[in-house]
């Protein structure tokens, strides 16, 4: 009986593993093709074989404009390194501001008692359902009036405030025991000290989750930079990739090398922060 049960379990385990492996293969094939193509030579790109016969690593320096492109024998007309910097700079700026303002506001919503708190919070929540495209048009108009077009601050400031971040951090701060605040108040701590020394360290998983999510979101953001910029110097990676695709789209091997370089930082960040990210997504999702 037990033996039978165990063997049945092993069979089902094998099936599950097989099924998961096939699904995993289907999910990963595009990535495999992407990486393999990025190491191909021009002549081999259009051949059906996935893994190149004669691999070359030259596509990467070509895209980074360190080497000349062999067909036209000149460097590509783009600034890939600059785009990298722009993306990371933009993402850092946005994340720093957004996490800081969200944390402060979340403290006011989660830990302070004041008249009208719940109403204001409901207003915040309500704005989360406004489609971003509704806000984009008037905000763009505002940026035009302020002459913020083609500037870093025009890219960063309008997206540096987030109702979602406030909501997420509030959820985390609510789970910090109120007894700690009371004890600290009795010890003579003011609100700023409570915020900075007690609540912030205890809400660290939430802060990390929000930081990673915001960073990735703004690293990948596309719509806002697209309409705000026409100066190629300031393009972030996303808009830069589009212009790269427009001008060199036929050279698949170069495009794929650029794609790999675009995705690589994401995968690194993900593998470091996976644990926090999952918990943040689930909290933000289920309780939303």
């Amino acid at each position, binding site marked *: 009986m037990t033996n039978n049960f165990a063997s049945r379990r092993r069979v089902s385990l094998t099936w599950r593993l097989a099924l998961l492996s096939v699904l*995993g293969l289907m*999910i990963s094939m595009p990535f495999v093709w992407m990486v393999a193509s990025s190491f191909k030579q021009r002549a081999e790109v259009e051949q059906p074989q996935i893994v190149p016969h004669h691999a070359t690593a030259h596509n990467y320096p070509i895209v980074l404009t360190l080497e000349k492109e062999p067909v036209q024998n000149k460097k590509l007309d783009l600034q890939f390194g600059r785009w990298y910097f722009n993306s990371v700079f933009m993402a850092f700026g946005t994340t720093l501001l957004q996490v*800081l303002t969200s944390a402060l506001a979340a*403290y006011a919503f989660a830990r302070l008692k*004041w*008249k009208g708190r719940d109403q204001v919070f409901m207003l915040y929540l309500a704005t989360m359902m406004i*489609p971003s495209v*509704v806000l984009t048009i008037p905000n763009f108009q505002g940026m035009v009036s302020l002459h913020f077009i083609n500037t870093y601050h025009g890219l960063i400031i309008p*997206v540096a405030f987030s109702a979602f971040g406030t909501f997420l951090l509030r959820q985390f701060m609510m789970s910090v025991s109120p007894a700690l605040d009371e004890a600290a108040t009795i010890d003579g701590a003011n609100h700023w000290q409570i915020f900075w020394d007690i609540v912030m360290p205890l809400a660290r998983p939430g802060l990390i989750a929000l930081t990673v999510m915001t960073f990735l979101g703004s690293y990948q953001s596309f719509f806002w930079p697209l309409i705000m910029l026409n100066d190629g110097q300031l393009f972030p990676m*996303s808009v830069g990739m589009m212009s790269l695709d427009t001008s060199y789209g036929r050279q698949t091997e170069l495009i794929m090398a650029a794609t790999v370089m675009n995705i690589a930082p994401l995968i690194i960040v993900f593998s470091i922060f996976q644990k926090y990210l999952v918990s943040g997504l689930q909290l933000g999702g289920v309780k939303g």
Partner: protein
Amino acid sequence: MFGGKFSDGNGKQTMNFQQVQQKQLAPRAKVKAKTAARGGGAGRRERAAILTALAFLLPNLIGFLAFTFFPVIFSLWMSFTNWSLKPAVKFEYVGLRNFTDLLGVNATGPGAPAVLAGFLVCALAVTVALVGALWANMAQWRGIKLGGALLALTGAGFVFVGCTHSLQGLVLGGGAALICGWSMAAKDAPWEFGRGTLPGLVLSAGAIGLWLLSGAMTHAYQPRDPYFWQFFYNTIFLMIGIPFGIAGSLALALLLHQDLPSGEARQRVVGAATMLVIGLVMGGVIWTQGNPNAGLIVGLLWLIAALGIGFNVVAFRTLFYLPTFTAGVALMILWKALYNPKTGPINVGLNAIFHSLGIHATAPEWLGDVAWAKPALVLMGTWTCIGGTSMLLYLAGLSNVPKELTEAADIDGAGPWAQFRHVTWPQLAPTTFFITITSIIGGLQGGFEQARIMTAGGPAGSTTTLSYYIYNKAFQDLDMGYASAISWILFVIVFAATALNWKFGKGLEVD
């Protein structure tokens, strides 16, 4: 209150604590007495609390007001004007004209008002009945099984007609009705007539009415902005990936929520290494026998399985989450290359299969073909989202299903399917509902990036969604007023979905 806690520690701490407490209490009591004497103490404390809160709130509040609150009002105001960034256009208030231009129709022939009225009544009936069906489903009204069966039947009829006349829209709508009806008819309820039958009945009748009248409507009337309706239809069409995505996410979560290998670390390492060697040998043999691609695939399959043995479900979870995580412009460019009709691996593979099977067919042109562009985008979307946030939410939901329930079902001799159908699935209802609504909200607003990067909205506008239409109106034609009006219509639809979430999401908490 803290006595117990602190007396557990050393005595010194207790002393300190009490001292501090006394020190703190004394001035507080004094203040209280003072304010009480003056009167209005509560109000002052309240004001102080608000000021403190404001200090914390201020940075965010400024941004909120500047970039969310006022823009919303500004946008609404713009939608009643002809606001344009073109210097030639003279600003004026146009009242509701943007909206009537978007939603209105022009009579092109001897338009029969009765047709229009009938069409509107049917459309209204369908909308109301949709909400009613949801309501009946939640509230378990009597007779819901019959209504569901009716709806499913109508849906099947539409699918059949759509297939035979190759009308994608009919297949789409019919399929949706079929799924909704099926889910209602599959409930454990007696076959009887009751008020729960009405939504299904009205929905079926309304849909049939819409279909019958649509011929006369297109004959007698023309929408003032036909693009709007076409792009609205596109937006809805691109959302057919949602049920597949949800089903896929649930399947993945079910496969992943129990640990895979049973054994110690050493056994796992040995198992993984063995599988790796098998994969290398098998892949290598196939590769050198003249089929490098097949060799690669077989080798990768074993590699992934080995990772699963070595790292348990975490390996798969990470792998499935990868597309969601890296989603963005780069992945869309990748898929554009994959879908390339001549050089893309999808068509190269398909053509090779056709050739080897002796079928005289050519693979579709995917993004370049009006009929295939939308399915191609849906496929990409499903690949991107299937292992994403929905799967994680389902995993969380599955871990919240009480063990006693599944164990009880096991003891009662329920098979895996019965256990899923009667225990797991009902327990997951809140998660499913939440995922569905958020997917719909996201889907309504979606499609901009892929249209901009992969298809430019084409071919023939077949992949232009509402958000891409708004982008084109606002930032290509610079017609901000009209674009704002479209965005507000989108807002109203999204709001309706959110309201459904609020209305029904709360009642779904299963405990």
